[in-house]
């Protein structure tokens, strides 16, 4: 029975949007599949890993009767990618197999019943709905998401802390040694809501958001957050846990202040990093009158030294950092200058954007 006939891209676009989260090998075989549903002239692809669910819709005036089927996400998207674009693809279902035809190619794929596909039950205890431009959220995420922990035993750090408070939306990410904070003003005011979103959700969201002014809607419920933008809807569970108090680690009394051209410092650090220890990634930062000196050495006793002139007149300081932590903030802050506020050799450094209250990045030093 013929299900559908469409141009390749009309199928591939929604499919590619959801395949990112689909695990290739899973104990529940259906989780390696994508749910393909046609309803009226709309085609919806849905993928899930039981934590996140992404649905992408394509309205292309599809004809024919409605259907729902699940098929291996990887194989189906590999097939579609491999056939020439502009090809007309026909989907047929015969005895629980999906036949994909294009030109002289023909593939018969196993299917599993659409009724068995697990969809997240929607949490209806809606607490807040935040609206903003997609590009604005993407930029905000870009400023902090790299600071999330990865596979940390403190599972609540493997994600992003999202807070609404008054007319502010705040995002916080930390791996326990460095912390990124970014906020933005919202047109309306909210009660205080706090959720931790899983790392995978954030990476996928960041990937799928476009740098455009079109709106993204964030529906925050007790146990679930929904992001809707363009043709995409992401439902994500939230991480159950208590995020550490980020306010407590923002240094208040750091007195060694300097402002530096971001790209200058970035280039100097990137060069020095060539000779940093691959395992510990340590860098020495030496502050003296008018100069910031960067020193790296590796196991083979090779050394790199960089100097950048800065307007600095405070007390001297010789302090160590994980160079990656510094590179991260320099790479991901698309601004001309950054302010650094150092304390003593055992205190964190605070990185901010000049005349901007909405961004803070804190790095703890390492002993070198």
């Amino acid at each position, binding site marked *: 029975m013929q299900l559908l006939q469409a141009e390749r891209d009309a199928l591939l676009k929604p499919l590619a949007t959801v395949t990112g989260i689909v695990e290739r090998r899973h104990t529940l075989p259906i989780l390696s599949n994508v749910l393909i549903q046609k309803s009226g002239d709309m085609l919806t692809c849905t993928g899930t890993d039981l934590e996140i669910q992404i649905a992408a819709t394509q309205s292309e005036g599809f004809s024919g009767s409605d259907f729902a089927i699940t098929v291996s996400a990887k194989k189906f998207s590999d097939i579609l990618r491999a056939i020439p674009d502009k090809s007309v693809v026909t989907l047929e279902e015969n005895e629980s197999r999906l036949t994909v035809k294009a030109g002289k190619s023909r593939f018969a794929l196993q299917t599993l019943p659409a009724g068995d596909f697990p969809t997240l039950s929607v949490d209806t205890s809606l607490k807040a709905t935040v609206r903003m431009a997609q590009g604005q959220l993407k930029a905000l995420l870009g400023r902090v998401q790299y600071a999330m922990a990865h596979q940390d*035993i403190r599972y609540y750090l493997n994600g992003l802390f999202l807070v609404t408070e008054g007319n502010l939306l705040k995002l916080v990410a930390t791996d*326990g040694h460095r912390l990124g904070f970014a906020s933005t003003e919202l047109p309306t005011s909210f009660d205080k809501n706090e959720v931790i979103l899983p790392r995978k959700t954030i990476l996928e969201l960041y990937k799928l958001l476009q740098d455009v002014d079109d709106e993204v809607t964030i529906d925050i419920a007790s146990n679930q957050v929904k992001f809707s933008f363009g043709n995409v809807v992401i439902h994500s569970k939230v991480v159950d846990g208590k995020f550490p108090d980020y306010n407590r680690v923002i240094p208040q009394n750091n007195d060694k202040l300097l402002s530096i051209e971001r790209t200058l410092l970035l280039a100097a650090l990137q060069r020095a990093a060539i000779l940093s220890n691959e395992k510990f990634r340590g860098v020495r930062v030496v502050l003296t009158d008018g100069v910031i000196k960067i020193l790296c050495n590796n196991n083979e006793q090779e050394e790199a030294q960089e100097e950048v002139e800065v307007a600095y007149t405070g007390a001297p300081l010789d302090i160590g950092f994980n160079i990656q932590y510094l590179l991260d903030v320099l790479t991901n802050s698309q601004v001309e200058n950054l302010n650094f506020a150092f304390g003593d050799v055992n205190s964190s450094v605070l990185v901010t954007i000049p005349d901007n209250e909405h961004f803070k990045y804190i790095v703890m030093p390492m002993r070198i």
Partner: protein
Amino acid sequence: METGRKIIHIDCDCFYAAVEMRDRPELRDVPLAIGGRADQRGVISTCNYVARRYGIHSAMPTSRALRLCPTLTLLPHSFERYRDASRRVHAIFKGYTAHIQPLSLDEAYLDVSDSAHCKGSATLIAAEIRDRIRQEVGITASAGIAPNKLLAKIASDWNKPDGQFVIRPQDVADFMPELAIAKLWGIGRVTAERLARHGLVSCGDAQTWPLQRLVAEFGNLGASLYRQCRGIDERPVHNDGVRKSLSVETTYVEDLPDLPACAAALAPLYDDLVARLTGHDGELMPHKAVVKIKYRDFTQTTIECVCREPRGDVYQALLERAWPRGAKPVRLLGVGVRFADLPAPQGDSLPLW
């Protein structure tokens, strides 16, 4: 090559039984075993040397042990007392070196290469440790002293119980050829039989095979065999024994007849696992979920999958896939996790909190 390390392997003699005999001296001269009850399909954990004369050994089903020795005194485990004894033994070790790798409650490797005790003599250190265990804990221990872990472990078995044996670096070349290959690390009964079919029974036999031939025939095992049969073992003594896995299992008093019965039995087992996972203190991330099934006829199968967050439904799914392999009544179910290798260190950056 070996660079003059001094390793001691200390193994308490029939540890659980020794603790019981210390606390109840009247049990010293009767056959005694610690283990689960025969009517509950228990197995023997440890037995004393009197019981061993009847042919009883650890891991033997209790029912069989009782057939071999109807007068056997069988005691249930009292782990609190064993742990207490173990802690006191461990405290004695700590007086001699910080390089201690515990293998179980009653067994450990000590690296005393840099120890200044007893004028640096590992033999004297071992004798002193055994003496103190006898006096302070009230049980006996055996020790092996050798240039590496492999030989130390073999040596501790040599004069058991209540004895010790030294393999000096210059003795290794003479000692190895006579040694049965089955004594080596990683050689169980099945592997030993396989090696014997190739004429490899003693380490001397294996020494006649060139490395290429061993590897061609036995793969990685061959490479390990090539080194082990010459008494070479460079594995360090790890003092931070990193746990690789955690699991719980139950032998059922009555066989679980079918898959639904197994599925029902899985839930309490899973709860136990979760309780133990939350209780354990390591900074470890689960990496794989494992289900083990032992059927009525003692055949067994295990299945595992990559999974960061071991949830109940993952174990159910694994069970559903594994059970049909035997499709027989089940006497034992086990569930567990394997932990991921520790993530790369983040340098020594100080913590924010």
